[in-house]
């Protein structure tokens, strides 16, 4: 009993210290997550995984649209994280525009709830994200009574910004994680053509549907984007087909770049086959925002989605 009491005391004490480190980080992934869940009020929000975080440059979006923008993307994430971010943001305000980056093979596998465990340090202070995190395991709610468990394995990334700044992007980058350098391998890789279609995972699909319907209910202009990969030409996949269907059903534009040869055959735009480098991200964001801009401008005059005609690119 004494051991358990001592452990419980140290757990609380350690938790307080870790909360402090989280809340005062100069930058880094926890600072970004905290900003997303607690502070951001930007007009435009980008949601996605690593390609969301790396490929979209908020400054370019801001300059082009004349609206403020925050990139809430986070590497290694998927639909559960998108749901948590959505809940966190909608609990405070309604952004005007949300750009949702979806990978061409997203929605095919079982949603990786455990990846959203990255948000565990916010579990106690953000009841709105608890339903998502509770799906990691049936006793997650119990485990999260431990403050140390909430920070399990996070120490490296929690402490790193105090010593090395900007590795996950500077605060002035507004959530964007610029990746310098150019890919110097797989340059002779033959262009990979359409892989066989894999059926969508019903749970992932259901999660996606919730994301869409919740934004729709709140009148958010939602844009779906499938960003490019080097050496892979994917014009159609189960996820893309479903995005097209959703896009047509609700009038949310879809932009498919995964078969765009001005990207997928240009290694100089990539830092690795799945992520654009700084030049690539800037070119991609300018290109994308040029296409989105007319919709955003027209929506200023029209309040209902139904009045507009959307084109699937």
């Amino acid at each position: 009993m004494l051991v358990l009491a001592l452990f419980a005391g140290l757990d609380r004490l350690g938790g307080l210290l870790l909360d402090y480190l989280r809340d005062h980080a100069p930058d880094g992934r926890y600072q970004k997550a905290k900003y997303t869940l607690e502070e951001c009020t930007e007009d435009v929000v980008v949601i996605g995984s690593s390609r969301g975080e790396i490929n979209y440059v908020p400054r370019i979006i801001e300059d082009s649209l004349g609206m403020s923008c925050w990139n809430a993307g986070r590497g290694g994430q998927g639909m559960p994280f998108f749901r948590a971010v959505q809940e966190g943001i909608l609990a405070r305000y309604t952004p005007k525009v949300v750009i949702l980056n979806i990978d061409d093979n997203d929605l095919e596998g079982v949603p990786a709830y455990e990846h959203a465990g990255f948000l565990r340090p916010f579990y106690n202070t953000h009841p709105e994200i608890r339903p998502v995190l509770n799906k990691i395991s049936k006793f997650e709610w119990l485990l999260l009574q431990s403050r140390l468990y909430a920070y399990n394995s996070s120490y490296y990334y929690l402490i790193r910004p105090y010593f090395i700044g900007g590795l996950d992007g500077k605060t002035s980058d507004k959530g964007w994680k610029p990746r310098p350098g150019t890919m110097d391998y797989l340059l002779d890789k033959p262009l990979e053509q359409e892989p066989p279609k894999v059926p969508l995972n019903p749970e992932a699909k259901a999660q996606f549907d919730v994301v869409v319907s919740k934004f729709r209910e709140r009148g958010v202009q939602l844009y779906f984007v499938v960003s490019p990969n080097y050496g892979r030409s994917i014009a159609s996949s189960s996820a893309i087909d479903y995005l097209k269907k959703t896009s047509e059903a609700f009038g949310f534009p879809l932009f498919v770049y995964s078969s765009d040869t001005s990207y997928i055959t240009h290694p100089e735009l990539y830092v690795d086959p799945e992520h654009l480098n700084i030049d690539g991200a800037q070119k991609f964001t300018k290109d994308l925002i040029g296409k989105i801009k007319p919709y955003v401008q027209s929506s200023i005059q029209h309040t209902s989605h139904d009045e507009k005609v959307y084109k699937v690119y």
Partner: protein
Amino acid sequence: MLFNSIDFAFFLPIVFCLFWMINGKDLKYQNLLLLASSYVFYGWWDWRFLSLLAFSSGLDFFVGSALYKQQDEKKRKMLFLISMGVNLGLLGFFKYYNFFAESFVEAFSFFGQKTDLNTLNIILPVGISFYTFQSMSYAIDIYRGKLTPTKDLIAFLAFVSFFPQLVAGPIERASHLLPQFLTKKRFSYDMVAAGLKIMLWGFFMKVVVADRLALYVQAVYGNVDMHTGLSFIVATIFFAFQIYCDFGGYSLIALGCARLFGFDLMENFRRPYFSGSFREFWGRWHISLSTWFKDYLYIPLGGNRVSPSRNYFNLFTTFVVSGLWHGANWTFVIWGGIHGSYQILEREFAKIGWLKLPKVLQVVLVFALTCFAWIFFRAASLHEAMHIVTTILTHPGGSLYTGDLGIFAFSIMAILMLLTVDYINEYYPDFSLLNHQVVYVRFATIVIMLIYIVSLGVFDGSQFIYFQF
């Protein structure tokens, strides 16, 4: 039910309390409770396979009794063959049917013959290799006249299905464990405290070391086309520690858990990577399985009381079969064959005095060669294993894939901690922080370990590697 699951965290205290509450009453009630608990533990995974467990152990109970009573040698042999046939038949069907069917078709295709043999969608019952071997040893020992059968069916069923060691061993012998089910238990604080400490270190090995290393190993071995020789070398070394801590950790949890109920299980791992020879390695690695194969396969084949060439054949065969026991894949067979070859070469080199190296070099050499064999154990196919071996031999350098730096750094930390503890246990066995005579040191060690496990353990429900065997 997994040891590192919350379900088990509820299950164990309930069973523990009930067990000691009925202590002092008829022993049968305690055994009945253990039997019921073990079946719940197993059924938590898939209740349908409880019938298989009950059938397999029930058969050996009745065959054991009949064997003991039967005087006619022919009938005894018949009974013995029934037990072996049914046990190995069930194991063969559930574990090896698809492997042999596919290999059969491939062999015929190689000679230009097309053969159709359908594979089946068979679920491998968890722990079948373990409980089958444990149950078989009972019948074999009675057949050999080395064991008197028990008349207590409940005790026997509880012995085969004893939940701490049901799904991944240690593979206990009836002569060691069964009498413990027939003896009254006495509660002792020291016994329970010792059990909990053993479990704590087992959990540390499992969730802090093994599961942490598994993340890096999976990233490299799961994508073999993308990695360099250096990354393969690092991933293989990581895997050597992963499998040791996965299985060694599990065995310790089993041992500690059994201790909570007053049972004493055999030691299964004894710091294997401090071995200076392969003979020593197999005396420290998966001891319960090594001795099982020694007693029930190697010695019946003739052991070392035969000509040297026959002895080497016996050794090689034992290791190949041991490899196959680990899994229905040619990679496991090759792994067993490599270890069989190591044993033979080691004996040949010893004859001409090639092995007179300093101890530390012997340890490094044995570890390096063990790692080489692990490549075949871990790779998904022979093709992938050969790709890894070729890359390491032809391009051993290249850039090192670190993956997530946090995971990589914590992996290195975990290995260093493990090696430190194993080094102390190996060379300074009297020094133990967990059992230190100063109470504050003991408590502080336990609390620090708990904090470390909660802070840096991997808790995403990963399976124990040995469950598949």
